[in-house]
């Protein structure tokens, strides 16, 4: 080994990141976040066209959005459909996770794979499948139709956080409750449920968000009578110039931040409960 390389080895720090790499990774982060951040100033423009930079500053677009009946009904439809989906998906997900994580029966692996399989099927294939089936049932253009389609779609995303939480749950707590005379139901309601609740809420939030943002299935199922927010946004992005869109996007961006904070908070609660503090 030469004197130079020995010196280099002594100073070598694996944690060192050279400036070119900082530039590359920093630009990548900017690439990820800047376009969406740009929408915030754009949303403050008052003109009838979308311009960069906006010539007049104001909250006109937000005002217009909140007084527009078609957009209001789209938001309302989306909220109802997503909430119903989250309820169904969480209810099924909690039961299935309890059975799959704690049960010993044959075919468990297969059932597990079946439950997460909607994650893998291309969304357009699901959309066509629901379109054919719901048309037969006369459920095109109904909120019920959308909820029925979104339930299998969101089920994997509610099962995953719930079963992850269950796997970290110490079952000796249940035994202790049972020994102290609690019934099976009491044990679940007073011990198990409160401890796994953050995981259940995380699953419900995921299910809600996926349903709230889903557009491809909505294109087929919404019809003209159950138009959701993403479907309405899609129509506007594709076929019109709508100066309200940056404002709507900004509000969805804020929603993402709220969800992120909420999920982060729940994750912390899960971690704390699992370590028993």
């Amino acid at each position, binding site marked *: 080994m030469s004197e130079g390389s020995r010196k280099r080895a002594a100073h070598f720090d694996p944690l060192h990141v050279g400036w070119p790499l900082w530039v590359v990774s920093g630009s990548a982060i900017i690439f990820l976040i800047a376009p969406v951040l740009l929408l915030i100033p754009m949303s403050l423009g008052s003109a009838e066209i979308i311009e960069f930079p906006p010539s007049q500053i104001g909250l006109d677009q937000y005002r217009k959005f909140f007084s527009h009946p078609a957009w209001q009904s789209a938001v309302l439809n989306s909220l109802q459909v997503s909430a119903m989906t989250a309820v169904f998906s969480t209810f099924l997900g909690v039961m299935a996770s309890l059975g799959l994580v704690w049960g*010993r029966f044959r075919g468990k692996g297969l059932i597990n794979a079946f439950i997460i399989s909607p994650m893998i099927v291309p969304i357009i294939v699901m959309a066509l499948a629901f379109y054919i089936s719901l048309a037969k049932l006369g459920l095109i253009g109904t909120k019920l139709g959308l909820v029925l389609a979104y339930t*299998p779609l969101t089920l994997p995303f509610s099962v995953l956080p719930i079963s992850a939480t269950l796997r970290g749950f110490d079952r000796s707590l249940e035994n202790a409750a049972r020994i102290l005379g609690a019934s099976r139901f009491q044990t679940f309601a007073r011990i198990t449920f409160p401890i796994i609740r953050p995981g259940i809420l995380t699953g419900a939030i995921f299910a809600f968000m996926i349903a709230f943002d889903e557009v491809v299935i909505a294109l087929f199922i919404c019809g003209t009578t159950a138009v959701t927010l993403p479907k309405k946004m899609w129509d506007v992005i594709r076929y019109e110039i709508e100066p309200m869109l940056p404002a709507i996007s900004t509000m969805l961006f804020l929603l993402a931040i709220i969800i992120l904070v909420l999920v982060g908070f729940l994750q912390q609660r899960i971690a704390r409960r699992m370590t028993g503090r």
Partner: protein
Amino acid sequence: MEVMTEYINSDKGASASLWHRQGFRQFMLVVPALLALILLFAIPISSVLLKSIFDPDFTLKHYVYFFKTPLYSRVLWITFQISILSTLSALIVGYPIAYVLRRAKPGIRNFFLLAITLSFMISLLVRNYSWIIVLQRNGVINTVLSTLGLIDSPLRLLHNRFGVMVGMTHIFVPYIVFPIYSVMMGVDLNLEKAAQNLGASRWQTFWRVSFPLSLPGIGAGALLVFIMALGFFITPALLGGRKEQMLSNLIQIQIVDLLNWPFASAMSVILLIATLIVFSVYNRYLGLERLWGGVKK
């Protein structure tokens, strides 16, 4: 008779019967989800399969038509091409982020992770729309460049291959970063120190030690993204032109505009099979658990 004795035996052995009953009870908890999935997922998907081969009698003509018509073979090829290219470009953008994340101080690491997770959580439509605002004729890039006097006429950045690649890369990067980052976190950095001690340069250390050790993460992320890309619909529809329409987009046109459900069904089955083939590779080498284990931070 055998069943009978087994039943009696299990009834006598208290623990065995409890196990047995417990297993049954817990299976019953899974039943509602199973029923929902059969009714709302398995049956609808099967009806697509049936629609593609019965019209009204058994026929494979829709599949024959698909593979015989140059237009559709070309779309299948474009679908694979865009999927491969967007996976590669997401790797190129995502890998340096994961590499730096592994080595950054907690403050910067948390900032990076926050930015990636936030980008991941924002509505897909909003992310695609933001690229329209940035890339369109009178969009942010063209406005800035022409104000600086760098261009005379606006660049065509939207409704072409470039627009689709930018939009898809933007969506896929988080799916690439998380698995690579989680694999890198499990690698002991002292290995790099050892390589350096043995006389390797920084470059050699990376290519001979760090990079090979991160390959499982690259494989997991790339396959996951490739699976997602094959069925992508929103970005090619919003940011692509006529030449960037993928299989999903053609299926939609067949359903909505041409009302040709049997042919749309055949195309859906082809897309589904292509996806399942890639997925079986994923499952074979990485296991199903990776699908969620690798993506979480």
